[in-house]
């Protein structure tokens, strides 16, 4: 079984967003770039599965659509343990553009199990995984919190609104993963970092694809009014405020 993980290269989650170019863009220099947190968990789970002999995973590949500046993030994934990597050389435009580019590459060399994260922490699209599955015309399972492979069967836990379901779906398929899929993201060892330098990172050109949406500009949220403080000796006042002023209880 071959596993592919779609990695999105995103600003570190603590980044302060600064708008530039008349709010048409955000400041991209001086930012720490990381593997999107869910994609990092997906990679961790794929490596755990590879180490489990019953799962019979031969190879774990990572793929990113992005410019050359995404390469340190890709190398990090290789250092954590991915076997090889693909970079599609283009700037992400929208989810459809990204998914179409990924689909073009994947079609040429199909994987059994494709993992995407539930959302990128930059544009919060929650879109690429499902779009990719539709473009490849294969099943998808969303809100996945567990994946096991046993005797060629892939069993999955997914969250539904109001509970959990255990499902099984034949390969090839896309799973869109969320919290729970792995406990803690794995970190690269010194040896891993050394080995990553010699692992294959194949750069492929982009296909001609049009985006369906466009980011016209950004706005920052309005600053919040100061917090109204209530004395710890007068908890009742808080309840009164919530009841009479905010009218929420």
């Amino acid at each position, binding site marked *: 079984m071959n596993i592919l993980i779609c990695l999105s290269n995103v600003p570190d989650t603590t980044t302060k967003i600064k708008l530039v170019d008349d709010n048409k863009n955000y400041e991209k220099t001086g930012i720490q770039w990381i593997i999107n947190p869910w994609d990092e968990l997906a990679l961790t789970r794929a490596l755990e599965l590879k180490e489990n002999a019953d799962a019979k995973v031969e190879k774990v590949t990572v793929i990113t659509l992005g410019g050359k500046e995404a390469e340190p993030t890709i190398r990090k994934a290789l250092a954590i343990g991915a076997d090889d990597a693909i970079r599609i050389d283009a700037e992400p435009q929208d989810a459809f553009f990204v998914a179409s580019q990924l689909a073009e590459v994947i079609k040429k060399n199909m994987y059994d199990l494709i993992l995407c994260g539930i959302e990128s*922490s930059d544009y919060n699209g*929650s879109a690429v995984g*499902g779009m990719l599955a539709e473009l490849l015309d294969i*099943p998808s399972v969303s809100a996945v919190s567990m994946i096991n492979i046993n005797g060629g069967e892939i069993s999955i836990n997914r969250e539904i609104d109001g509970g959990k379901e255990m499902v099984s779906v034949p390969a090839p398929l896309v799973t869109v993963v969320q919290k*729970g899929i792995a406990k803690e993201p794995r970190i690269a060892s010194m040896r891993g970092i050394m080995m990553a330098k010699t692992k294959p990172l194949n750069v492929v050109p982009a296909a001609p694809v049009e985006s369906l949406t466009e980011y016209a500009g950004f706005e920052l949220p309005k600053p919040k009014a100061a917090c109204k403080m209530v004395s*710890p000796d007068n908890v009742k006042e808080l309840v009164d405020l919530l009841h009479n002023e905010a009218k*929420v209880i």
Partner: protein
Amino acid sequence: MSVLVYTENWEGKFKKLSFELVSYAGKLAEMLGTSAVAVSVGNVANDELQKLGNYGAAKILSVKGTGLDKLDNQVFTSVLAQAAAQENAVAVVLSNNNTGKALAPRLSVKLRAGLVSGVTQLPSSLNPFTITKKVFSGKAFANVVVKTEIKVLTLAQNSFELVQVENKAVIQDFNANIDAGLFKTTVKDVEKQAGKVLLTDAEIVVSGGRGMKSPDNWGPIEELASLLGGATACSRPVSDEGWRPHSEHTGQTGKIIAPNLYIAIGISGAIQHLAGVSSSKYIVAINNDKEAPIFQAADYGIVGDAQKILPELVKAVHEVKAS
């Protein structure tokens, strides 16, 4: 022309979430000079379906059929695409919940329709079709232009006011053509979270962080939540430690919620935590450190020891409820 809206029922009943969706679709249809058509999958009685009319659906397509009791993303996408074609939909609205996130991207590709997820408002302009969504986990908003004729939108939960109208909807059966080979998802087991208010549905959420010190101290949090008819939540380290179930974890890597009231107790207010709760209408913070960042995000705050304040809070809420 129409605006199609996908509603979900739970054991034959609609939740507020579906009425929000229909209200939104109704208003969007008004802007576009057309009407809203709701799609309901599964066995729902006609008087329950009719409720969708009261929030603005002009027509309801009721889809019944074998195999539709469990979500298969390809099958459901195919049903929705067929409904969109029949109704000549110019927009399709789904919830930004687990099901909506599973179906909307597939539908977007099938209809070649630009997708904007997690919207909270109606479009700011129709030409070009421009709509605002949160990005960077709430640290900014983006204005997204949809370039295609058909638009797919997912609506964030609890972000749109219900709109009640005098209206009787037409109910029609809708038979989708589904290729048997499309069913590939086998559900082996279901675990339902029975009897509790769902965190994503709750209008009031009481949440505890590491400042609660031990899982044994959660009694008053649960009591407060049930007293207020709300749900309980927690910060990530609390669920990582196994003090509380993972399903309660809110924040960037957990659930993203927008209740009317979020009470954060012993939570420092890290940026990743706020990413999941900052859309709450009101935030209350209880923390013994007056410098804790949670007070920057809160509307009301008390600096003090949670163990002392919680019992008093429970008592005061009891009194207000009794009065």
